[in-house]
C-alpha cells in the first residue's frame, strides 16, 4: 500500500477513535446521573433506603440468624461497604458508588447496595 494511502488510513483511524469515544462519553453522561439514595436489597428485595446526603454508618444483618454482617458507610455523598464477614470480601474492595445504577454486590450474603434516584417511583419520599 502506498504511503499516502496509509497516512489517510491513519487519519481515518484517529477520527473513528475520537468519534466512538465522544459517543461513548455522551451516552455515559446522558445516562449517568448522581444518585440520591442508597437502596439496600436483600435477596432481591429492597428493605431500606438511605439518603446519600447524610453521612451514616449502617450495620446490615442478613441470613437466617442474622449472623451475616455488612457495614454500609455513607460518606460525602458516596456509599461503600466498610466491612463484611463474608468469605470473599469483594464488596469491601469495591470503590465508593454515587451514580444511579451503580451497585456493590455481596454474593454470599445475597446483598446488593444500589444507588437510585430520588424520584425512582418507589412511592417513597426521600428523608431529606
Amino acid at each position, binding site marked *: *500500500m502506498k504511503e499516502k494511502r496509509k*497516512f489517510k488510513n491513519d487519519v481515518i*483511524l484517529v477520527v473513528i*477513535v475520537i468519534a*466512538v469515544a465522544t459517543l461513548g*462519553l455522551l451516552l455515559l453522561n446522558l445516562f449517568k446521573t448522581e444518585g440520591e439514595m442508597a437502596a439496600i436489597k436483600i435477596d432481591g428485595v429492597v428493605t431500606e433506603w438511605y439518603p446519600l446526603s447524610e453521612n451514616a454508618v449502617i450495620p446490615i444483618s442478613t441470613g437466617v440468624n442474622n449472623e451475616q454482617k455488612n457495614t454500609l458507610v455513607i460518606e460525602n455523598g458516596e456509599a461503600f461497604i466498610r466491612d463484611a464477614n463474608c468469605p470473599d470480601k469483594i464488596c469491601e474492595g469495591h470503590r465508593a458508588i454515587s451514580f444511579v445504577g451503580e451497585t456493590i454486590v455481596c454474593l454470599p450474603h445475597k446483598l446488593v447496595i444500589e444507588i437510585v434516584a430520588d424520584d425512582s417511583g418507589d412511592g417513597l419520599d426521600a428523608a431529606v
Partner: protein
Amino acid sequence: MRNKTKRVALLGVLTSVALVLSYLEAMLPPISTAAPGIKMGLPNIIIVFLLYRFGVKEAATVSFIRVFLVAAFFGGNIMTLAYSTAGAVLSLVLMTLFKKINIFSVVGVSIIGGISHNLGQIMVAIFLFKTVQIGYYMIVLSVTGTLAGIIIGFIGSVLIKKLEKVSF
C-alpha cells in the same frame, strides 16, 4: 557470527535505552492524578523501532525484558507486573497484526499499540476487581492512548527513516 554478536549487543543497548526511557517517564510528574494510567509510553519508541527494523521476536524479547526489569528495579509487585505484561502482550500482538495487514503507517500501528496497551491493562483491572464498570474508563484511555500513539509513532518513524541505511 560477527553479525549475530553485533545483533545481540545492539538489542542489549536498545533494552537499556528502553529501560532508561521507563525510568525517565517514571520521574516525570503524572499527566493526570485524577486519571491514573495516562502515560506517553516512551519505551514504546524502541518497541516500534524494533518491530519495523528487526521483527516481532526481537521486539517481544526487549519488551518482556524491560517489563521484568522495571518491576525488579523500580519496586513493582505481582499486580503491577500483571498490568504491564497484559499491556505489553496485547499491544505487541495487535501491532504485529496491523503491521502485517499493512493498511496503516508506523503512526497508525503505534496508535493501535497505544490503545491496546491501555485495553490490556483495563482488562486485567476488570478481572482483578471483578467490576465491569471499570471498562468505562477505556473511553478516556482510548483517546489518550491515541495521542500517545501518534507521538510515539512519529518519533519511531523518524528513527526508522534516519537509520534506514544503517545495517544492523
